[in-house]
């Protein structure tokens, strides 16, 4: 049996650990709140740009914009969004597993695809396995503003336009609620599956539909990436918050168990001491 001091040490260190996890839970909770707010603030913009894009793309038949047409696929790009740090439960591994399985199923040769990694965890994973990572972005802030990720989004969309990739898929974690997040797969480009839910308005175009598509489509694709990033950030903090809450709960449970063992050992020591004193006194009589 461990000595009294050993148990005491374990209790103390577990207590310290629970303090840290508790603090991390609180910071994640604050970040999560803001993340969800950011994602919500983005919704009106996304809805509107989607509506306009659909209206313009559907309303102008006979226009062949490269971003709207599927071409023979020589190389596929996978955009993978993870966090920079771990300690977020299964958040990162879920996304990565999904991408990895898809790649194994779809491709035979390594030249057929490449990864665009957003977040350190994704980059490290794919680099370690010798998979081509064409573009890597680490250190995205917790509350990314649209301007701060403009470089990322436009270079990604640019890789489709210049023919580096013939199709682009987006993998990220969709935030459903504080306890459920879901890995999503979205075909980003070409925009072949634009669907209509609302009634179409037929617009006049100023100057022309082609020129508007030239500006609108890249912006739409960039907005999709930005929206996914916000979604992913909200999920990350929710996942980390849950993970840290579990860790704190577990630490409390451990402290309880240790305290029980500690008290038992202390009682045993006292009993033994009394027995020794009684024994000593009896020997003197």
């Amino acid at each position, binding site marked *: 049996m461990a000595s009294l001091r050993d148990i005491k040490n374990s209790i103390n260190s577990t207590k310290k650990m629970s303090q840290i996890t508790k603090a991390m839970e609180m910071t994640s909770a604050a970040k999560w709140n803001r993340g969800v707010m950011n994602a919500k603030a983005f919704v009106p913009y996304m809805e*509107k740009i989607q509506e*306009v894009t659909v209206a313009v793309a559907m309303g102008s038949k006979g226009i062949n914009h490269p971003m709207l047409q599927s071409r023979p696929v020589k190389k596929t790009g996978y955009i993978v969004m993870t966090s920079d740090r771990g300690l977020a439960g299964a958040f990162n591994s879920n996304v990565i597993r999904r991408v990895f399985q898809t790649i194994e199923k779809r491709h035979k040769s390594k030249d057929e695809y490449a990864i665009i990694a957003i977040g350190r965890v994704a980059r490290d994973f794919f680099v370690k396995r010798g998979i081509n990572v064409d573009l890597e972005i680490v250190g995205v802030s917790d509350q990314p503003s649209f*301007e701060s990720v403009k470089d990322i989004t436009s270079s990604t969309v640019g890789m489709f336009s210049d023919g580096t990739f013939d199709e682009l898929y987006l993998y990220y974690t969709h935030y459903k609620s504080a306890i459920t997040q879901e890995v999503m797969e979205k075909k980003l480009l070409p925009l072949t599956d634009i669907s209509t839910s609302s009634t179409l308005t037929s*617009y006049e175009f100023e100057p022309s539909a082609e020129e508007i598509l030239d500006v609108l489509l890249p*912006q739409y694709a960039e907005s999709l990436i*930005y929206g996914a990033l916000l979604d992913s950030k909200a999920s990350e903090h929710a996942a980390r918050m849950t993970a840290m809450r579990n860790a704190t709960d577990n630490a409390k449970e451990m402290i309880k168990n240790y305290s029980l063992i500690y008290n038992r050992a202390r009682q045993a020591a006292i009993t033994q001491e009394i027995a020794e004193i009684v024994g000593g006194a009896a020997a003197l009589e």
Partner: protein
Amino acid sequence: MKTIKVSVVTPNGPVYESDVEMVITKAQSGELGILPGHIPMVAPLAVGVVRLKEPGRKEEELVAVSGGFLEVRPDKVTILAQAAEKAEDIDVERALRAKERAEQRMKEQKVEDIDFRRAELALQRAINRLTVTGKQ
């Protein structure tokens, strides 16, 4: 006088929402004035100032927008901008600094460089912001 609903939305959230008598914007093909009952239209916007005539107010409300779209419907105008600020929300100090930085960069770069074009755009945005606040 009849009014038309206007909303300016950016990726970081809605910036302006109100009923106005007239919207004046700068599209890439030139200035556009929109009154209530306009036919549906889509046009890309240039970096510039959106002027909004609110009913019962003499001076116009100014919003600086950089890059985006104008969507017009008979009863509603939506401006989708990558960035937009109302005059009172603009950080004048920051805009001034951005202006100086852009000018500095344009002096160092060659005209055909991509960075020159980038600096030029940054300068446009900075000047646009300053115009809206009336500090230029």
